[in-house]
């Protein structure tokens, strides 16, 4: 599915997640965040960097991982990305939605 985000044509799946991480830019991330009702701050970007690093290193994402990340604690994570933090933050980061149950 094609979608125009930040004046770029991007491939997304039916849930709105990017199909190809290489199409991601910070502008695309900002736009995706806006659609989720989130205004990006430095702290948000710090989390996005962390998630993208994890993804590049092929490491699974979980809420326990967030707790151990040293980047953010769980409370802040829920505050920054309300209503499903890992789902929303991965969408904004342009990486696939985590499949884990924890």
């Amino acid at each position, binding site marked *: 599915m094609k979608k125009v985000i930040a004046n770029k044509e991007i491939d997304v799946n039916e849930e709105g997640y990017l199909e190809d991480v290489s199409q991601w830019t910070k502008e695309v991330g900002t736009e995706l965040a806006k659609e989720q009702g989130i205004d990006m701050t430095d702290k948000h970007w710090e989390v996005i960097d962390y998630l993208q690093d994890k993804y590049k290193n092929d490491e699974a994402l*979980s809420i*326990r991982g967030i*707790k151990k990340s040293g980047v953010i*604690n769980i409370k802040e994570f*829920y505050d920054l990305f309300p209503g499903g933090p*890992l*789902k929303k933050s991965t969408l904004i980061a342009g990486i696939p939605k985590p499949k884990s149950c*924890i």
Partner: protein
Amino acid sequence: MSTKVKKMLFILSKGTIENAYAAFVMANGARMEGIESEIFFTFFGLEAIQKKKLEHLHVATVGNPAMNIPTMLGGLPGVEALATKMMKKEMEKLDMPPIGEFLEILSDSGCKLWGCKLAIDMFHLTEDDLIDELDGILTIGDFYARADQDGTQLLFI
């Protein structure tokens, strides 16, 4: 969508490790989906929120046909501990947090944790026996009041 689940209320009444994890995984999963969640610990479920007991929950090897251990063997000393140890090892491989850490994660995620007043009185427990993350001690009436909104589901474990 009017059918969407907005709030999940769990009642944990059993003190076996598999039941505690069932409640915790579902309560955490709800929060991760943007759904409110709360757990009400009653009767043997209170074992999971007692500071001295929560890391010593066991899997039931007696009266549990799915364990594939003959009932006679399941009752021998050490069998339950061994089965529990093996299960914990498998859980660690999947990055499942131990009970204490899981309770911290739930609390930080905004999942409310409640103790059942009747059961706490019955087992002669005080607040000092219970985890610091506990949000309070409720009667069943208080708990029902928390279910009084559209899109709420109650689940007994």
